[in-house]
């Protein structure tokens, strides 16, 4: 693999850009791999990457039914933060956030990580208490966050309206090292690095069945034929229930639509990410100048990657009260992704009832921020066969044992 650098740009400029090579190979599947990962979203690709990087396991295929990064990884609003309440969450999300800081250098691929800071607004008395509690928890966990008052919020976000009639801004939880990154660059960067290690990324190849023998996985059936493997990782977000069904086990989650939209580009007006969880809306400004907006999930099971229009209306209505200046903005595009939501709003990483079959799912509305940490943890589980390390608490059995990692009340609904 030729490295990207300022020198490479100069060299290619001098020869009419004829020397760039493809970022990753697109091979036909081999008949057998040590490890197969289903799903070339951020989490699947990061899992493959850390299998190679941390454990030297490179006879790996990543199987993707569409194009890589075309699932939720390419559909999210790219908010990165680690200000969760529970210790296991703080550990994995903070690991992820810290890996984002060095990801561009590590992958030799510019993922445009922008640690611009994230504010979660408190707009009710209950939220003030909740976020102050989170700030204290974060201090104990070694995650730098701070509770800030309304004046500081206004300083950080001049376009905000503090005295909304229904939900005035009473303060916020501020994580200065949170931010955003370019979502598909994260997938592309990992894909390029995996391909460079000799792994096969196989796109346009849908997994249609899981082969088992004596309770253990032996391979998969795909639209490009059968492929054997020693170990299998399922990392398919909204399709996890469907894949688990193929393997013969059930999951404690449901798939629902989550939507986002972007406005026409405008001049820079907001250089932090703002989340307003009470009114279900959040917003940031992309490098192109678009306002990137997201809201809450639809309430019903859905696999269509389309959501309900009234949810967008509710989100925009709420944000207009908080940011009156956006009321005249035209919206350019809107889209949806299918997110897999668990009972305690925390992910599942670990072993399954089927031998040599591992799962990573349940990231729901907020897994972009977790990609490197999740891949790191999942690689450890697959390489060792044991649910340990950062993944230890996130096992599938926690629902039966009543060991929830309850982030649903504390950290707000989305992202």
């Amino acid at each position, binding site marked *: 693999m030729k490295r990207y650098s300022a020198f490479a740009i100069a060299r290619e400029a001098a020869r009419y850009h004829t020397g760039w090579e493809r970022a990753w190979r697109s091979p036909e599947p081999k008949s057998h791999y040590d490890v197969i990962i289903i799903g070339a979203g951020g989490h699947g690709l990061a899992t493959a990457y850390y299998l190679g990087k941390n454990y030297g396991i490179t006879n790996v295929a990543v199987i993707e039914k569409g194009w890589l990064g075309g699932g939720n990884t390419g559909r999210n609003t790219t908010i990165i933060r680690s200000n969760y309440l529970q210790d296991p969450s703080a550990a994995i999300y903070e690991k992820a956030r810290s890996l984002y800081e060095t990801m561009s250098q590590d992958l030799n691929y510019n993922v445009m990580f922008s640690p611009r800071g994230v504010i979660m607004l408190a707009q009710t008395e209950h939220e003030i208490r909740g976020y102050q509690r989170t700030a204290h928890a974060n201090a104990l966990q070694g995650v730098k966050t701070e509770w800030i008052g309304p004046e500081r919020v206004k300083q950080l976000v001049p376009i905000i309206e503090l005295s909304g009639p229904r939900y005035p801004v009473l303060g916020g939880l501020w994580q200065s090292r949170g931010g955003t990154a370019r979502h598909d660059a994260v997938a592309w960067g990992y894909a390029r690095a995996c391909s460079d290690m000799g792994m096969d990324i196989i796109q346009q190849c849908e997994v249609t069945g899981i082969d088992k023998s004596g309770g253990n996985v032996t391979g998969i059936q795909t639209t490009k034929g059968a492929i054997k493997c020693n170990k299998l990782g399922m990392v398919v977000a909204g*399709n996890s229930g469907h894949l688990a069904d193929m393997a013969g086990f059930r999951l404690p*989650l449901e798939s629902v639509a989550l939507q986002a939209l972007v406005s026409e580009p405008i001049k820079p007006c907001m250089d932090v990410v703002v989340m307003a969880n009470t009114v279900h809306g959040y917003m940031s400004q992309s490098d192109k100048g678009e306002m990137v907006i997201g809201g809450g999930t639809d309430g*019903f*099971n859905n*696999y*269509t990657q389309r959501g309900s*229009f009234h949810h967008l209306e509710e989100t925009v209505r709420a944000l207009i009260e908080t940011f009156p200046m956006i009321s005249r903005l035209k919206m350019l595009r809107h889209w949806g992704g299918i997110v897999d939501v668990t009972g305690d709003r925390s992910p599942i990483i670990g072993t399954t009832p089927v031998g040599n079959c591992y799962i990573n799912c349940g990231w729901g509305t907020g897994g972009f921020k977790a990609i490197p940490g999740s891949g790191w943890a999942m690689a450890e589980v697959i390489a060792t066969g044991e649910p340990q390390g950062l993944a230890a608490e996130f096992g599938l059995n926690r629902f*039966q044992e009543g060991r929830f990692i309850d982030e649903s009340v504390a950290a707000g609904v989305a992202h």
Partner: protein
Amino acid sequence: MLILTCPNCGIAADETELHADGQAHITRHGAGASDDDLEEYLFMRNNPKGVHFERWRHVYGCGKWFHAARCTMTLEVFGTYPAQTLEPPKDLVAKIKKKRPDWEGFVK
């Protein structure tokens, strides 16, 4: 926009008038249940790609609960029926089977 006809009051209500409440026909295990049964009741869900039986409440209408059969791949509504039942009506199941020959049928 999703429109469901409430079998209680007969109104064709759009989703802003309704509240979705997930999978229907779940066995509600109580005190003394095994860990497996409680896990099944509280957390495990069918989450199918395709035919889904689910609970809805006509919150901004008559306020009553009902059930709906819907396709999660197309958002097609096959029908709605009263909540006072342990499984979907036979004629509705037959109608769905006709439209979706590959469907495995109602599983609890």
